[in-house]
């Protein structure tokens, strides 16, 4: 508790320090609020299967809590596409979306997610594990989730009922695509297309890029209103967001923990672990990437703390869980204002907007929301992020496997595959030391440890079968574990090879570093020292 109080006090102080000096911050806050609003509604209704106020409260309270608790000036929390989609997938088998039980379980899931994330903060090595997830794994998952979002929005885009129950997502996507062509509501498709094309066109212009979603949704809504006025709602049959008048400043709620719900609560525990990891992966990755772009650094543990505490509180405020948002953090970075007050002000502005403009938000058509989700999904498939991974074979394999695992397995499977691949990837790097034999010198770069010894030993035995006087140079090794030391000791005891020690290697590197072209004297000196080294190594 003391640590928590201290952490909160330090955060509050930092927040005060970053108080904006110009009204430009408020304008950026307004932009952020307007960009977040359609996303919040779309994530909750189209992806998570809960009423729109869940997403809106996440965009208010989630953003505010994260701004208070996370010292990073570029971090923006709030509703997240992948987490919302994961919630929908996890909860669908338990109960019917938008029902009381479903909403209660959604809150329970959020709370469990927060508690699991808190464990990652309390147990430091667990939190450090998140740093092991490499860039190709995260980008592979993000691209997979992007495609998944497009598939997931297809039925809403076509004005069709969402197919529930579990089935292979790619097949559902294909069937949904055919269903849109054959039986989709043409009015809904037109609204979705207008929104999608407006957003896609505006995104090509730098000045309008940040307003693209808002203008696109406005265009879709205006067309929907035109259709309703000319044909009548009974003929257009286009679903709208609906009444938001129940939104208040605070809407208290309780997660579902009744005796009847216990089997369902137990059933969603693996899902809660997935959700917690999914949130933390994105938060840590986004923090790492955006902080680097902004030229700063924030400890990822602080982001884990902010996410965990927020997600423990949000289920009591009728809200979706929160985590970092790549696209909104990118927007903050592009707008050039790095301030937590700006981010916090966006939450307050959003609250005022929904309190005073609920009737306007209520008439936004659902196909327009689906079009927004599809666009965000498409933006997650960024070729510039994918290209570097495809240049290296190992990275390409890891990236492709992570990407495909989202589509062919479920999200939990993708997290597991991603984590295993990341560890396997780093281990692979370690167990493949750079061993070369030049003349009679066996040079080892990298690690000498139990995993890499077979590679080194095979090379060594091949060398001693051909050469009498083998010299092992491990001066450029940066890690030797106990087994490696035992192996070296055994070699020494057997008098089978001579070693080049670390000091002589360092001396040689120092010499090479100070050597300049044309300085014949120094080169001569260097050669002399190398000869001395060679003489000395036989004494080891």
């Amino acid at each position, binding site marked *: 508790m003391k640590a928590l109080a201290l952490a909160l006090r330090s955060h509050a102080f930092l927040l005060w320090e970053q108080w904006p000096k110009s009204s430009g911050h408020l304008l950026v806050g307004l932009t952020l609020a307007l960009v977040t609003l359609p996303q919040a509604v779309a994530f909750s209704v189209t992806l998570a299967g809960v009423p729109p106020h869940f997403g809106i409260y996440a965009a208010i309270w989630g953003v505010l809590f994260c701004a208070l608790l996370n010292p990073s000036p570029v971090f923006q929390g709030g509703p997240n596409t992948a987490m919302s989609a994961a919630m929908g997938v996890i909860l669908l*088998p338990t109960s019917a979306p938008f029902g009381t039980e479903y909403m209660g379980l959604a809150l329970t899931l959020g709370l469990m997610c927060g508690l699991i994330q808190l464990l990652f903060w309390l147990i430091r090595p667990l939190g450090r594990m998140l740093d092991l997830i490499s860039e190709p794994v995260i980008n592979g998952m993000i691209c997979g989730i992007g495609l998944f979002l497009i598939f997931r929005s297809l039925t809403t885009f076509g004005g069709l*009922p969402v197919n529930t129950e579990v089935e292979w997502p790619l097949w559902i996507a294909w069937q*949904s695509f055919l*269903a849109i*062509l054959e*039986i989709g509501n*043409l009015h809904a498709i037109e609204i979705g*297309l207008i929104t999608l094309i407006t957003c*896609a066109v505006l995104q090509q212009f730098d000045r309008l890029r940040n307003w693209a979603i808002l203008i696109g949704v406005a265009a879709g809504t205006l067309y929907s209103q035109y259709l309703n006025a000319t044909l009548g709602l009974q003929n257009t049959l286009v679903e709208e967001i609906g009444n938001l008048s129940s939104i208040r400043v605070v809407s208290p709620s309780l997660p579902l923990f009744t005796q009847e719900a216990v089997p369902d609560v137990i059933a969603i525990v693996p899902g809660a672990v997935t959700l917690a990891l999914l949130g933390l992966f994105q938060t840590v990755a986004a923090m790492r990437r955006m902080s680097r772009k902004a030229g700063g650094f924030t400890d990822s543990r602080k982001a884990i703390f902010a996410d965990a505490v927020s997600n423990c509180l949000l289920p009591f405020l009728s809200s979706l869980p929160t985590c970092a948002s790549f696209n909104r953090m990118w927007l903050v970075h592009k707008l050039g204002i790095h301030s937590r007050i700006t981010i916090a002000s966006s939450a307050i502005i959003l609250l005022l907007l929904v309190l005073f403009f609920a009737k306007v938000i209520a008439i936004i058509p659902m196909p327009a929301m689906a079009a927004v989700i599809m666009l965000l999904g498409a933006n997650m498939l960024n070729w510039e992020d994918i290209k570097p991974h495809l240049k290296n074979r190992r990275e390409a394999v890891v990236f492709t496997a992570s990407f495909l695992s989202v589509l*062919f397995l479920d999200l939990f499977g993708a997290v597991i595959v991603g984590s295993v691949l990341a560890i396997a990837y780093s281990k692979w790097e370690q167990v493949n030391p750079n061993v070369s034999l030049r003349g009679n010198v066996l040079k080892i770069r990298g690690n000498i440890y139990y995993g890499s010894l077979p590679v080194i030993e095979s090379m060594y035995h091949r060398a001693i079968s051909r050469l009498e006087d083998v010299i092992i140079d491990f001066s450029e090794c940066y890690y030797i574990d106990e087994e490696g030391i035992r192996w070296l000791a055994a070699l020494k005891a057997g008098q089978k090879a001579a070693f080049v020690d670390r000091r002589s290697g360092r001396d040689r590197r120092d010499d090479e570093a100070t050597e300049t072209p044309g300085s014949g004297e120094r080169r001569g000196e260097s050669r002399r020292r190398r000869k001395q080294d060679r003489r000395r190594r036989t004494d080891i």
Partner: protein
Amino acid sequence: MPKPAAKLAKIALPALVLGGLYLVAIQEHVQREHIRDAAVALTPRCIEKLEGYALAPGKRYESPYVLQRTGARIALRGYSEEDVRAIQRGCNIVDDTQGRFAQDPYAERWNAKRFLRGSHAACSNCHRGIGDRHDAAGNRPQGSLHLGASWVMGDMYDRFTGLLLPYEFRQFQCYMNASNGYKPNIADDVIRDVTAYTRFLSAAVDMKIANHYEEQGIDEIAASATLKQGDDYVRGEWLYKQKCQQCHGPQAFGQEVSGRLVAPALAGRNAWNLQSRNNFYFVSTILAGFICRNMPPGRENTLDNQECRDLAFYISNLPRPAGDKQGPLVAVQQQLLMAVMPPLLRLGASSKTPGPLSRGNGE
């Protein structure tokens, strides 16, 4: 590429693709509208069924079956021409889901085959008598999976999943598990027409919403309804060979003769999957109940409860596809079993002499 040209391409290309898809959608909608308005070519059994119930467009509908059974003339709201065509198409889908009798399966069955895996799955395999089985006296037998009864008892809590399942969702389960296939969209004509047909059946036999009917679902047989000898694979195998093998084949892969299905597969790739409620390990009472009340055709209700459970136990142990909730590992395992087991069993059967059990219990 210069920047403005690249931007133009980024705008024009998606716009062209989306516009093209929109035109395809309009074309598909027009085609569907034509099919909905076209006269329906009924299957022979549907002609008999629907004529028997005097289905015709009109302002009022009176069921001759109800009149004959109760003597009461119950006049219901009639059916429009559009309604009649939907009911007829629904009957065709239930009777001939694979479209074997259709000249154009897409136009006449909404291509329902694409939602099924394998060539045997069809609604009437389980919902006997096109979902409305009658005995010689015109009675609707207990546990005959009557579709009219399913409609009036639809939208209720499902005791297996604990969910409030709309009738359309129940059809999903048939497509996904009993047919080992894929679910159509709820708004698809396949679902709407089958719903129209089942709704008509409930009106034709005078069933009322939310009432319980004996013919709905299956007359389940629990272990408590037996002498508690335990469910036995060996007894089940012997019984299968005696009672079922003739139609369903030695390895229960079903039988097709000249493109016509004689008996559907109970195992292998054409059968229901592990997540179906027919699977003994999922719900142990359903397949046994189905066997007792519906099998063998023409000699229903001749097997005793323990025999039905033994048969259900044996059949459920035969290799079959995994359900989609079971993940890729179980799917691979089942596919391997389905590939490896049949040749091994054939090999074993060719070198096997009859065992003492089959000789001793051969009466």
